[in-house]
């Protein structure tokens, strides 16, 4: 079976999980459990894709935008299962599923060929660097989902509208606390990814644009974490910054890889 088929299967499960979550009038428990199981299948299918792809290219499947997006989605769902359980925030899955579907769809636009961009044989430093970086983006992605949930809940409380998601979402206090923790963890992982990038010795072969982009993203999150400590920043603005910031990171990542892939 072509390994790409696993991507289609995982996208189908992510779609099913999204639809399941938003089905009206289902008892809350079944909604969460059903959506979680479907998201679990998405994760399994993605894992199988990454394993198969790894076997084909004999290295960690992070050699092009298509693989990187699949890995990023895998990292996002992995972090969800890790964090959602630890912080009792299974509701995060309701937002993780549509974002995963979006990323998988986005990734499909990249070239899917298996020619690695790097000519050097794989060595553990570069694999570690790539894997930890992608995990950091997964964590930051989950943080942005928390930011989005915070904004939805904040909107309900400000407008005194208690329909829709009000009862299903956790308190703003809890969401804010998880958002900060995820941002801190994501930032630590990203820093580790950048530091480990120095040890690969492959700077010459990596596009300068990618390096500058990575530094800009790192700097953005540094500012985001530092600003509330130095200046007054409302929780709402902070949540917006984490959400919009991540969307910008994703879009720029996608555009950059798309353009570099074309050249």
């Amino acid at each position, binding site marked *: 079976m072509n390994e790409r088929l696993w991507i289609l299967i995982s996208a189908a499960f992510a779609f099913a999980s999204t639809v399941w979550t938003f089905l009206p009038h289902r*008892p809350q*428990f079944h909604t969460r459990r059903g959506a979680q199981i479907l998201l679990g299948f998405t994760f399994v299918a993605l894992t199988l894709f990454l394993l198969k792809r790894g076997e084909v290219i004999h290295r960690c499947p992070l050699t092009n935008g298509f693989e990187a997006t699949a890995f990023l989605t895998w990292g996002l769902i992995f972090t969800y299962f890790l964090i959602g359980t630890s912080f009792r925030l299974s509701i995060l899955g309701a937002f993780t599923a549509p974002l995963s579907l979006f990323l998988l769809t986005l990734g499909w636009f990249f070239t899917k060929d298996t020619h690695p961009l790097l000519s050097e044989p794989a060595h553990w430093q570069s694999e570690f660097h790539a894997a930890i970086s992608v995990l950091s983006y997964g964590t930051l992605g989950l943080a942005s989902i928390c930011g989005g949930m915070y904004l939805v*809940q904040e909107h309900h*409380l*400000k407008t*005194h509208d*208690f329909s829709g998601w*009000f*009862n299903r979402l*956790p*308190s*703003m*206090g*809890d969401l804010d*606390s998880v958002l900060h923790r995820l941002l801190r963890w994501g930032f630590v992982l990203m820093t580790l990814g950048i530091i480990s990038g120095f040890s690969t010795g492959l700077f010459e072969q990596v596009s300068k644009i990618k390096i500058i982009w990575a530094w800009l993203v790192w700097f953005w999150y540094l500012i985001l974490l530092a600003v*509330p400590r130095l200046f*007054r*920043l*409302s*929780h*709402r*603005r*902070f949540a917006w910054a984490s959400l919009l910031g991540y969307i910008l990171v994703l879009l720029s990542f996608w555009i950059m890889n798309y353009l570099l892939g074309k050249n």
Partner: protein
Amino acid sequence: MPGPRLVCGGISFHEAPVEVLEKVSFAKENFPLLLPQLQQELRLDEIVLLSTCNRVEFFAVAQSDAIPSVQWPEFLQRYHAISEDLSSHTFCVEGTACVEHLFEVASGLQSMVVGETEIFGQIKDAYETANTHKTTGKWLHKLFQSSFNAAKEVRSQTAITRGSVSVGSVSVELAEKIFGSLKTRKALVIGAGDTSEKTARALQSRGISDLYVTNRTLERAELLAHELQGHAIPWESWKEKILEIDILISSTTAPDFVLHAHEAKSLIKQRRGKPLFLIDLAIPRDFDPQINELDDLYLYNLDDLQKISSQHLQDRGGEIEKARQILRPHVHKLIEWIANHKKIIEAGIPSTKTTEHLHPRRPQN
């Protein structure tokens, strides 16, 4: 051997005004003598007696010659020395109707505030008290255990208990949606009104760490602070206190706002973005409505809170039919269990339809 004749009867807020309910309620300390007395006078084999602010009801297995629909109001009149005829205020049903009634009461469908869960605990207490005094047997054990299971399923499968229905509990619910746990939160009460006191108590029941009270008259503030185990602060310094509190409750009689939007704006800057929940229970308003437009400030006035509580009540009412559908198989299961034990009286257990014309059921709300 004859089977059980399940009977229940009572008097509740549906049929009787509060003045009558007050007269007919039973004190728990009288139950040791009361239960055997009821058993004897109403000719009952088993009995559980439930006495709350809103209802006084019995659930029993009656002997074949008992006429509880007549004996129950007479007993109430005699026991409480009431001259007024209570028969028009009481109800009595048998068989399936009795099972349905208990299941609905335990699920909160028959409560004044539909879906309230306190009744579940009260029924459990009544059942345990009857157990202690050995007035229960095989049939009531099964009836009550089944009612607890049915009520639990209704609670978990419907939204009947969702949403608070009093100003105090709505405030607590909102506070928890804003802050999460209230254990480390601090509240300030401005003015010593009755509603603000109730709201403060509701917040205290969720474990807020500190409560401050202020009033134009310091003595009144001190009195309320003492009652609430909080701290009184002088009227002149309450605005400074905003910097450290999380919840601000106000119910003064001031003709103008006690907190304007521009003041709140400067205070929130000093709070460095820490959210503040403002509860305005005063008429006319104490807080400028524009405050709600500022970031990290959440303002709710009395109208807002009352609207939320009415909406919740309406939503709960909409779940009643769904809850009844959940109860139906539980009722059938119990009836089948009784049948399987071959204890059914000759012609079987009368259905709701056949008993209703004999003992009219009280109106459903």
